[in-house]
C-alpha cells in the first residue's frame, strides 16, 4: 500500500514532464478553478469549437490514409486530398496558436464515451 501517489511509479524516465502534462488541466477542472472572466470564457468556447474541428480533421485524415493505403485512389485525388489535409492542419495550428491552445487542451473527456480524440 502506498502512502503517497509518487510511490506508484514502478519504472520511469528521467523527464516526467510529458507524462504529467494532463494533470494541471485536470486539477483545475476538478477544483473548479477555471474562473468565468470573459477572456477565459472565450478561450473555453474556442477550445470547444477547435476540439470539434480537430476531431473532424483527424477523422478525415484517417479515412484518407485508409483509402490511400487501400490503393483505390488515382494520383490526382491523392495529391488533392493531401494538399487539402495539409492546409487544414496548417490552419488548425494557426488557430491553436492564436488561442494559446495545445493539443492536450483539445481533448475533452466524455466519460464512458471515452476521450474525444
Amino acid at each position: 500500500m502506498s502512502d503517497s501517489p509518487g510511490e506508484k511509479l514502478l519504472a520511469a524516465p528521467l523527464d516526467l514532464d510529458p507524462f504529467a502534462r494532463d494533470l494541471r488541466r485536470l486539477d483545475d477542472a476538478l477544483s473548479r478553478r477555471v474562473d468565468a472572466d470573459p477572456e477565459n470564457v472565450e478561450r473555453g468556447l474556442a477550445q470547444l469549437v477547435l476540439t470539434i474541428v480537430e476531431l473532424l480533421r483527424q477523422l478525415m485524415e484517417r479515412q484518407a490514409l485508409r483509402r490511400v493505403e487501400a490503393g483505390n485512389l488515382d494520383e490526382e485525388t491523392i495529391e488533392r486530398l493531401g494538399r487539402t489535409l495539409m492546409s487544414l492542419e496548417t490552419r488548425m495550428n494557426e488557430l491553436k496558436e492564436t488561442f494559446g491552445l495545445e493539443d492536450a487542451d483539445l481533448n475533452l473527456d466524455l466519460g464512458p464515451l471515452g476521450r474525444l480524440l
Partner: protein
Amino acid sequence: MTATRDEIARQREVALVDLVDRLLAGGVVIGGDITLSIADVDLVYFGLRPRTPSVAPAEGLGMSLPAARGRPFT
C-alpha cells in the same frame, strides 16, 4: 540520491494522471449519472441509461455547472 521537491511533485502528478484515468474510466459501474468528465470549459457527465443522456448538475459531488451550458454534448 534523494529526489528534489520538484521531482517528488512530478512523480505525484504522473501517478495521479494514471489514477484518475482509472477512477473515471474504469471500475465497476452501478447506478446512473455518475460519470465525471473533465474539460476546462464544462464539467459534464452523462446518464448511463441509454434513453436519457442527461447533463445534470453534478450536485452529487458538490459541484454545479454553469446552467446555460446544460445541454447534452453529442
